[in-house]
């Protein structure tokens, strides 16, 4: 292990069972990667359901996806990619000891995540009005396919679970802002920023797949 590269020897963050900051940083990062593996398989289950039903009823997916608005889906994709960029910028700021930049970038990320959720809210509300409700509450008659309810069950489960992850991300980001304001982070210690960033990028990646699979069926 190399010597801690921190400019000043601030070691408040170092827990007793680690040898040095680098070991702690590497361990946390690996822990996050292992966690991301579990996240991928967690969503993987839903993708399996999606693929199995799509293989059974390709026409159902064609019909039902016309109810989803490609424009707003694309906007949301762009919003999430933008927020990934700002998270990456936030990490860069932390690495360069620019705490102000870190906080600003986190604020922008939170803002973009909220925009995503608001758009999602309007999409959901629009469907609810039509009677496209999840599960047995489904009452929309506009799709001539007997399994239409299942497509929307999968849609709601996938986007809903993704939405929950976005909310968790917003919570984590707010926590980071509070910590950053207390001057906890510096170029020698920004582990929470880094691993929250990893989480956020994964949420972005999952949406990158959800978008074409749900909205872009033609």
């Amino acid at each position, binding site marked *: 292990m190399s010597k801690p590269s921190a400019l000043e020897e601030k*070691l*408040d963050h*170092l*827990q*007793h*069972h*680690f*040898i*040095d900051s680098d*070991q702690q940083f*590497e*361990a*946390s990062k*690996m*822990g996050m990667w*292992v*966690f991301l*593996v*579990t*996240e*991928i*398989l*967690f*969503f*993987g*289950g*839903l993708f*399996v*359901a999606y693929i*199995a*039903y799509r293989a059974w009823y390709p026409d159902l997916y064609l019909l039902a996806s016309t109810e989803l608005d490609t424009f707003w889906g694309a906007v949301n994709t762009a919003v999430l990619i933008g927020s990934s960029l700002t998270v990456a910028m936030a990490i860069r700021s932390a690495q360069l000891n620019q705490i102000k930049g870190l906080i600003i970038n986190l604020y922008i990320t939170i803002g973009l995540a909220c925009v995503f959720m608001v758009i999602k809210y309007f999409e959901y509300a629009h469907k609810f009005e039509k009677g496209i409700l*999840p*599960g*047995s*509450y489904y009452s929309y008659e506009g799709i001539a396919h*007997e*399994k239409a*309810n*299942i497509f929307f*069950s*999968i849609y*709601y*489960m996938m986007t809903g*679970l993704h939405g929950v992850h976005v909310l968790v991300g917003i919570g984590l980001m707010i926590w980071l802002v509070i910590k950053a304001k207390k001057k906890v982070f510096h170029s020698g210690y920004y582990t929470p920023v880094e691993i929250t960033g990893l989480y956020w990028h994964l949420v972005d990646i999952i949406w990158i797949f959800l978008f074409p699979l749900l909205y872009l069926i033609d």
Partner: protein
Amino acid sequence: MATNEATTSIKKLQVKRFKPDENPEKHYLNEETGIWAWMTTVDHKKIGLMYLASITFFFFIGGMLALLIRTELLTPAQSFIDADVYNQVFTLHGAIMIFFFLIPSVPAVLGNFVLPLQLGAKDVAFPRLNLASYYIYVIGALFTIFAIFTGGVDTGWTFYTPYSATTTGNVMAMTFGVFVLGFSSILTGLNFIVTIHKMRSPGLTWNKLPLNLWGLYATSLIQILATPVLAITLLLLTMERALGIGIFDPNLGGDPVLYQHFFWFYSHPAVYIMIVPGFGIISEVISTFSRKVIFGYWAIALSSLAIAFIGFLVWGHHMFTAGQSSLANMVFSFLTFLVGIPTGIKIFNWLATMYKGSIDLKTPMLYAMVFLFLFTIGGFTGIMLGALSVDVHLHDTYYVVAHFHYVMMGGMVMAFLAGLHYWWPKMFGKMYSEFWGRISCGIIFVGFNMTFLPQFVMGAQGMPRRYFNYIDQFQPFHQFSTVGAYVMGIGFFIMAGYLFHSLRKGKRSGSNPWGSRALEWQTSSPVPLHNFEHTPVIINGPYDYHKPMSEFQLGIATSHNGHDHHGGDHTDVSKTEKEQA
């Protein structure tokens, strides 16, 4: 051969021999006592013991439920509980034994206690996460208990749709409890993987890693790769009940066989979550009590990983008669047989380790022998069930029940007991009664075979599982089986007795009662608060019994990282340094 190289570089680093304190005054059990200190501890050893207490509780409950089932089955018709209660009882027996006992048993209890010790680390990589995973386990358990008292669950531990989507009772609380529990398992696996990667002592390379850790590593990989799928499956099932999403419920257009794929994608690898860490323990115990280098170190280590991997591809053998396509049946049957090979290799390796050893049949070794015998039977009957045409006849009969009890109880529980007896002195610094240990091992062995051997016969004769009533011709087998269950119960009762006695009045064990070369035995018993008073340095493999003990006790004096809040350590260091190599 590496010794010479190593010793030269060791001199530069000022490596000394640290003999463990045989009679430590301060250790993890008497520093920081009191309920609150235990509840908030982040010490992996105490968390391990908290898990031990919890799983013992659930093993007791699950065992009592088993006796209830066996007693009811004494007669073909209803004897003292009705069908509804019976169905709830076997559901709970299965769910509790699998989710609350077997899955956390070795990783969360013995793994938590031993893993950092075998690595020479002070703790796991994320101690707070470790404590959190314990509390998540407790929360999951509370949900399940809540489900029992608010309507019960009668679906069987497999929660097959559409029955689970339509039956009355509180299935939602139960599945949610198991869902929560899954996260405990995931976090433990995550913690172990990172710990093994990042917290190894100097010199502890991958080819010197104890086989127990290879087993735990393979287990952790399965935990992180499979458990999330259980989580999503149960979430979908909960949603099925709450909202009627219809993915698995045929009444709403779904496919129940798809549910079975989801469920077994987790639950078959879960069998390996239960058994693979058992393999690790058996390797440790057999090598220690044969005082001999393990035969085929890499074969055992890699076969654990191979089992973990192939174990993911065989889930469909639970579904040969479920209406799965013939193509899938063929592929799953083929892969199932492949998983038998690495398992067989392990058995032969353990036997070869005993060959020309110096075998001491102490209680842990006795359990290891029992494991070898019972697990082999479990394995062979598994081959039987993997054979497509025979499985059609045997599927969902008592043959399957007997088979998985031979694997889970004859394999896993025996391995757990071997490990518990093996590491007991390390945990508490006390010895148990060797005499009663052997007696109860014998009683459990006899009782176990009495219980489950007849079940093979009645299963092959056609007795279906999960039957409350049965036709008269099976009664003699059921009665024999019930008697066996009580014999086994007596065995466990004796075990509880002598283990409690050892806690209160046991003889001091000394740091290394078995003469093992493994790292966890090179510190005092009970273990100091931070495991080692020095940083261990490893130059030999953990099974190199041909090398002197002194080469296994090397280390560098600890330089604590500045702000250690446990003041005691600094003063104690000088005490342990009194003897040098």
